[in-house]
């Protein structure tokens, strides 16, 4: 099969990925922001996986969390609000040699970009998506987000949020994503493990990370925080069948604070990348050549 999705790699000595080589801009997040932990976890995963640096692509939409591509030294893109996933889809489908990781917030993923989440997940495009959910619009200085609980007082709901919050895990399981996990920035090692498993997944993998906004919603996740009397229940995968979507929905429907870990993971679903490659092979088998100019000449000949 002839494909343009796998260009000849550049010949370079493989340089090991280290904390130093991955360092880029100093994060501009506010002191105490949960997002620092997500960045740290991502860098740990990259150091562990040792994917060639030039093949890493870090993308984002708009929001505090979406500044992350500036803080990690990979090829990166800072796209428009809510549309990072379809942009990432082009990058991933166009290039099988790349590892595409998208970061975004709850506004990006569940509000303005909700439609894209559905379809990128449904198509199972090979992308890892980390949703850094702080349940508030932080960059625009405290408005209600789709995951803000009823009663949350913000500048757009000064007497408290009226509308029910979205359940992120049920939402994600409903998209058809083939890897769905939940993490909390207060559990750094567990969150790192979740991102690592997501990045190793061949298909659309999504990790919902609860990360507090130190300025506008610091107590959002106190119920997970041991120091503040909360607790984190981790999923025991000897008891939870990660391939059982109904079991996953049950976990997603537990009362707050719920559980953390891999809710759903299936490995037998081909990614869109694989399906497109299969289509290419099938179509090309019908033609005697893969030479573009010869094929194009034949197309013109049919119009004579």
């Amino acid at each position, binding site marked *: 099969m002839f494909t343009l999705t796998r*260009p000849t790699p550049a010949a370079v000595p493989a340089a090991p990925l280290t904390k130093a080589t991955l360092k880029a801009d100093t994060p501009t997040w506010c002191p105490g922001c949960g997002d620092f932990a997500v960045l740290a976890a991502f860098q740990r995963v990259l150091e562990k996986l040792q994917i060639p640096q030039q093949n890493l692509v870090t993308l984002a939409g708009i929001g505090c969390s979406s500044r992350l591509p500036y803080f990690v030294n990979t090829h990166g893109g800072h796209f428009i609000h809510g549309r990072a996933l379809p942009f990432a889809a082009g990058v991933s489908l166009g290039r099988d040699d790349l590892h595409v990781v998208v970061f975004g917030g709850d506004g990006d993923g569940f509000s303005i970009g909700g439609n894209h989440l559905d379809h990128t997940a449904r198509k199972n495009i090979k992308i890892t998506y980390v949703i850094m959910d702080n349940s508030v619009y932080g960059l625009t200085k405290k408005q209600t987000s789709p995951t803000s609980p009823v009663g949350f007082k913000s500048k757009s709901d000064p007497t408290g949020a009226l509308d029910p919050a979205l359940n992120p895990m049920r939402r994600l399981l409903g998209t058809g994503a083939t890897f769905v996990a939940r993490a909390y920035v207060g559990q750094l090692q567990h969150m790192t493990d979740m991102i690592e498993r997501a990045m190793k997944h061949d298909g659309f993998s999504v990790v919902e990370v609860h990360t507090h906004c130190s300025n506008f919603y610091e107590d959002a996740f106190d119920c997970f925080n041991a120091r503040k009397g909360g607790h984190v229940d981790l999923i025991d995968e000897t008891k939870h069948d990660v391939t059982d979507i109904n079991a996953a929905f049950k976990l997603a429907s537990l009362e707050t604070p719920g559980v953390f870990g891999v809710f759903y993971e299936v490995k037998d679903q081909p990614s869109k990348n694989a399906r497109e490659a299969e289509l290419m092979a099938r179509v090309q088998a019908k033609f005697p050549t893969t030479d573009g100019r010869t094929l194009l000449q034949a197309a013109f000949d049919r119009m004579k």
Partner: protein
Amino acid sequence: MPTAGPDSSTATSTAHSSQTVRDVVIRLAGNSQDGIQAIGGFLARLAGRSDQDVMTFMTIPATIAGGPSIFQVRMGSGEILSPGDRSDLLVAFHQHSYEAHRAQLRDGGVLLYDADTVKPDATDTRIRAVGAPITSGTVAATGGSSKDKGKNIYVLGLIARLFDLNVEKLKGLMKERFGKKSEEVFNQNVRIFDAAYAHPLGDDVRACFEFGPARAATGARPMVTMDGNQAVVMGLVTAGVRFGAAYPITPASSIMEDLRAALPKYGGMYVQCEDEIAAIATALGFSYAGHVAVTNTSGPGMSLKMEALGWGIMAEMPLVIVNVQRGGPSTGLPTMVEQSDLVQAIGGTHGDAPRIVLAPCSVGDCFYATYEAVQLAREYSVPVIVLSDQALSTRIEAFPEPDLAKLYIEPGVKLAPVEGEYKAYAFDKPTHHVPPGTPMLGGKYPTVTGLEHDETGHPNASAPNHQKMTARRREKIKALAAKLPRPEVYGDQEGDVLLVGWGSTFGQIREAAKSLRTQGRKVGHLHIRHISPLPQGLAEIFAKYRQVDVVEINDEGLYGYGQLASLLRSALAQPHIRSICKTDGLTFKVQEILAGVSRLDATAQR
């Protein structure tokens, strides 16, 4: 013998079988399920193979089936420039088809109607009415097995008989179309065709339509026949585009459909996205990944793409956007033509966002303009908009086969390590992004962003930087303006009236200019293909004419000028630039342009 003229009264009213017509306008009117597009397609391709110029003018109703549908074919052995204002032959499948289109038939023209369904006005002596059992003849030819499916082939047989078309070539085309399905489908259609061909039609209405000699000039290229959307697709593939994304929308969908079918063959893919925004975002993602990509749409979709278009301009990402214009605003007139997206194309999206806009003027030019758009997107690293329209998308023309030996571009992503500090947006050289997969030996990897940024692409909101970067994005487009060829004027190089147009109205404006010149007036025609940036030298050319009449299918707006005229007036500050506009959802008739010129003559200021 009559020749191709502005009103195309051609297929002589006193035609005998011995006569040869130079061009003929055939209008087929029915419902969308009657298959009249297929008839048009056969006729157009027959003419294309016979080295004739072919132009068709087709409308399809917005409804899926049942609404009125027409297809008009003009075939000729001379230069065919426009669809033809009036028809020589009207084929009416239904009573309503007859009622709706009878007035459009020229004096002495022929009405060919289905005697099973149409009762023409017997007192109408202006035209010649000929009935044929289109429905019952079709049913009889198939042994009653297929109801009236195949009426279109019956009509094709009648037309072939009426104009003495080359039956052998037609059957060859039918073999190509139906032979793939099965031999039986092909044979059945031949039976229908033969039955119709054998049906006696009065000799007095038979015109002999003999194709002129094939172009034998040395080096002449064979003709290819296609519609405007197909020409866009061929232009993209020839220029090396192998990736893109779109969302279905009339009248642009066939570009997506054709690319979806074709690109896997070439090692690429075309993705149908969840919406128009996702489509441009995915296309930008492909471009960022190193494959200059395309998205195609029409007005409403174009509106949705605007924010992402701005990102492409800010991040300086190459991209081709094909907008097949239809009537607007909002859902507007989805199946009709309008040239009302020009202002959006040159200025849509927030902020100062210069970009390149090209407007093809014919089906053949849909190929070349799209090809050029890809080249310019690469060279200037910027989104390039191709403004086609509904008329071009559905029009079938024959044009000389493009020379692949010269034009074909082999695509591919090149990954070579980059040494030292990398500046994607250096002030002293044009942007050319390095695709991911590129090792950055200097250690620092780049991030592309919609935030204002410095030379390295790093966000930078300082006032001096924003001023410099805004100027940089502007100056690169101006640099293209300086390189564009000086526009050529057809006809008189100075004088009375310069007709200026853009897009699909080329043929009608050219015919109008010819007509005015035969009346002894000094008239030129200038067609603008590069809408943004405009080519240089326009002010000097315009100054040589007493009036500059800009012909476009859009509204005169709040201040009395169409969209291109407004742009030209603001760019050149010449008050003798004025407008001939219309908004009836149809392409210009030559007569309408002539009437517009007369109207402006009466109020000329100089």
